[in-house]
Every structure is written in C-alpha cells, then in structure tokens.
C-alpha cells in the first residue's frame, strides 16, 4: 500500500504537475456565475419554487383545509349545539386552526429533505436565513388560504353571532397569530425534518410553543364573537405582536445552525 506521503501529488507543488486547464469546451461559458444573489432575490427564488410545488403536490393546503372543515363538523355534533359564541367560539376556531396548521408545519421541509433540496441550497453562495424567510412566507400563505376556507365554514356550521361585522378585526387578529405560527412552525419543522421521528417530533415541539398564540388569539377573538361584539383587548394584540417578534428573532438566529451538519 502506498502511504499518502509517497504520493508524487503530495510531494511536489501541485501547480507544477497540473495539466493546463483546457480551452472552454462546449457547455462551458466564459463567465457563467455572476454576483451571488442577495437576500431578497434568494427569498424570491425559494418562494417561487414553494408556490410552484404546492399546487402540483397538493400536500399541505387541501389537507389543512379538509382537516379544519371536518373538525368543525365534529364539534357541531359533539357539542350538540347549532351555534356557539364568545369564549367557546373563539376557542374552537383557534384550536382547530392550530391543529390544521400543524399538518402544514409537518410537510414544510419534507420535499427538501427527501429530494435533496437542502443540499442543493447549501451548495449555493447565499444567505441561509433566506430559506427561513421563504419557508415562513410560504407557510403564512398556506395559513391565509386555510383561513379563507375555514372561517366562512366556521360561521356557517357553528358561529352564532354574525360574522361580517367581526371580519376586519378578526383578520387582524388572525394575521398576528399567523406570523407567530409561521415563525415557530418553520423553526420546528427545520429541526424535526432531519430526524427519524419527524412526524412525531414536529407536533410535540410545536404545540407547547404555539400555546401562547392560541391563548392570545382566542382571548383577542372572544369579544368579536360575543352577542354584542366589542373590539379585541389591546393587551392580547400586544402579547401576540411581542411573541411574533421574539420568536421571529429566535428563529432567524437559530436557523443557520439547524441547517449545519
């Protein structure tokens, strides 16, 4: 056996032995790679890919929406009530949205992990935080579509008080909740997807972290679903906003490490 030190390639200056690089052959461009893309361009590329893949696989949004609809039907019969309002209505809506969101969180990185998307991304000269932002935006988009389906269905199947009056404030509260779910969901999904028990680990990690969002969201929504609707309490909106900010920063700080070997 030759030892490494016996190799003529390691004994002599490498350049001295290297054959000259050939003339550009067919397929090689003189200056192919331009400037590495910036954060916005990378996020746009990743997000575009996400929004191309999801409508073709239908892996996330239809499942999330169907789950929410089915859960409302189950509540309808389990509670044996034609209508709910106040705290109960807000609780049912937020818990249902939370569990539906978990389905999307669980699928968020599966294609990347199974089809080598992580490696392809890691080989590129780009800011890794771009993947967090793009995935969180994709999840946010899925949540908005989910709510466009789920909220009218909830109003139809369970909600007593009229929905249209509550809608503008409700979408504000939902948007605050969605941002937190997207940040935490993306972080947890990235952590879980590289483990063997990813389908179990994702929900187990996500649920405790998402509880404050459900509490804040339900408390803020409850006055909107009262018989005599009032505005959501500012402190719950503030709580949601602060939680979004804190977990957005934590996710951005940790995400790079999650992609490392």
């Amino acid at each position: 056996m030759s030892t490494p030190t016996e190799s003529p390639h390691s004994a002599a200056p490498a350049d001295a032995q290297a054959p000259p690089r050939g003339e550009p052959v067919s397929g090689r461009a003189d200056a192919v790679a331009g400037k590495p893309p910036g954060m916005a361009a990378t996020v746009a590329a990743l997000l575009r890919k996400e929004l191309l893949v999801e409508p073709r696989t239908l892996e996330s949004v239809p499942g999330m929406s169907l789950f929410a609809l089915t859960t409302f039907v189950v509540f309808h019969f389990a509670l044996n009530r034609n209508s709910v309002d106040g705290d109960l209505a807000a609780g049912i809506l937020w818990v249902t949205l939370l569990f539906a969101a978990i389905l999307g969180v669980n699928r968020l990185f599966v294609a990347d992990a199974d089809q080598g998307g992580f490696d392809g991304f890691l080989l590129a000269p780009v800011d890794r935080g771009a993947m967090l932002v793009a995935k969180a935006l994709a999840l946010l988009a899925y949540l908005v579509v989910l709510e466009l389906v789920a909220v009218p269905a909830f109003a139809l199947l369970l909600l007593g008080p009229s929905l249209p009056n509550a809608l503008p404030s409700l979408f504000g509260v939902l948007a605050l909740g969605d941002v937190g779910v997207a940040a935490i969901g993306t972080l947890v999904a990235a952590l879980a997807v590289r483990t063997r028990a990813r389908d179990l680990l994702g929900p187990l990690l996500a649920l405790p972290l998402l509880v404050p969002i459900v509490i804040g969201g339900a408390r803020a929504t409850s006055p909107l679903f009262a018989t005599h609707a009032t505005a959501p309490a500012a402190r719950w909106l503030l709580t949601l906003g602060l939680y979004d900010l804190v977990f957005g920063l934590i996710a951005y700080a940790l995400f790079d490490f999650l992609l490392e070997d």
Partner: protein
Amino acid sequence: MAALELEGLARHYGEREALSDVSLSLGAGQTLVVFGGNGAGKTTLLRILATLLRPHAGSARVLGSRLPDEAWAVRGRIGLLGHEPLLYRELTARENLRFHARLHGVAEERVEQLLEIVAMTGRVNEPLRTLSRGMVQRVAVARAVLHDPELLLLDEPRANLDPAAIELVDPLIGATSGHTRVISSHDPSGGLAEADLVLGLRAGRPALLRAAGDVDPAEITELYR
C-alpha cells in the same frame, strides 16, 4: 496552489468510523479518482469536500479555503453530482435548473444552453417524476455544472446513463471539461483512464494512494475483495 489539500481527514457517524486518516494533495485541473466498495467512505469524502459534512479530525483545504471555518468562501465554486440528483420531482427540468440558476446568480440563457447540450429540450416542460433515471441524471449533470464550478465532485457520475448520454455529458464533466475533479468510481479501467491520482479506500482508510500511471488495475480490483 493545490485545489485540494487533505491532512489526516476523518469523519465518524456515532461509533462508526466512516473516513479516517486521509491525506493527499491535488493540483488545479487534475482528477482524483476514488475507488472502494460500498460503505468504504467515498460518498463521505465527497460530502466533506462539498462542505455538506464537517470533518471530525484532520484538516481540509479546498480551493484555498479551510473547512469548515471558511466553507462559505467555496460555496458556489463547487459542483456536486451525487447519488441524489438534488432536483425537485414536481418541477420540470427547466424549472429546476432556473431555480438553481437563481441561487447561483447565473443567467437563464445558461439554462437553455445546458438543456440543449444534454438533449433535454424535447421534454423540458415535463415534471421530473415522469422522466427516466437516465434523463434525470442528464439534468442533474446540467445542474452540477450550471455555475461553471472550479471543482467538480462526481459520485459515480455515469450511473444510469446509456453510451449516447455519456457522450452528451462528457464535455461537461469529462476530462476535457478542464475542471478539477474528484470522482468516485467502481470501474477500474474507466476510472484509471481519467485519473491523475488514485485513492483506494477500504473501511474508510486509505489502502492505495498513488499517481494513476503507477497503479495496476488489479490493485483496484483487490479493493473490492
């Protein structure tokens, strides 16, 4: 300056030693061919060089940058063609290559040029999941060279390719491409013909390291026994 300088490189997975005590130097424009049976450590070596795995011992300098601390400096200068094509099955060949082109800051004209070279223009708008493995491998070759990397890491690059397809991709990843290459191969005669330097691995350890001209094909066959 050497394109690759490895000194005592090692990597383990839990208790199992996947790669151990690999030391070599490879000049720019040269080709290192790595032989070894399944599980010998070839893919682990390629993934370390691609910055996708951290070495657990020893040092690795790739294109002048020390890994893993300066890995950021070589990303975008390496092309990896592994067992997985690193392509999304639901996207078409064109969409996949455009996606990677955006990540590398490469103009879209380059995508069309490569699709033509690998003769994929006829099925360019079909999802990858509908294509044969050979076709997917052709697209994967195009992806690996999309940004004209200085260093090509090729894990059995001709797997799944028929002779005509091999001819198609040869200008991109073959000896005439001019890239510095590290190739993992199971083909003693074909691999030797391409190599400047040969590394034979057995259970993660170097069992052979010599200039290609000094290697007998029988020595490579011996690695698999």
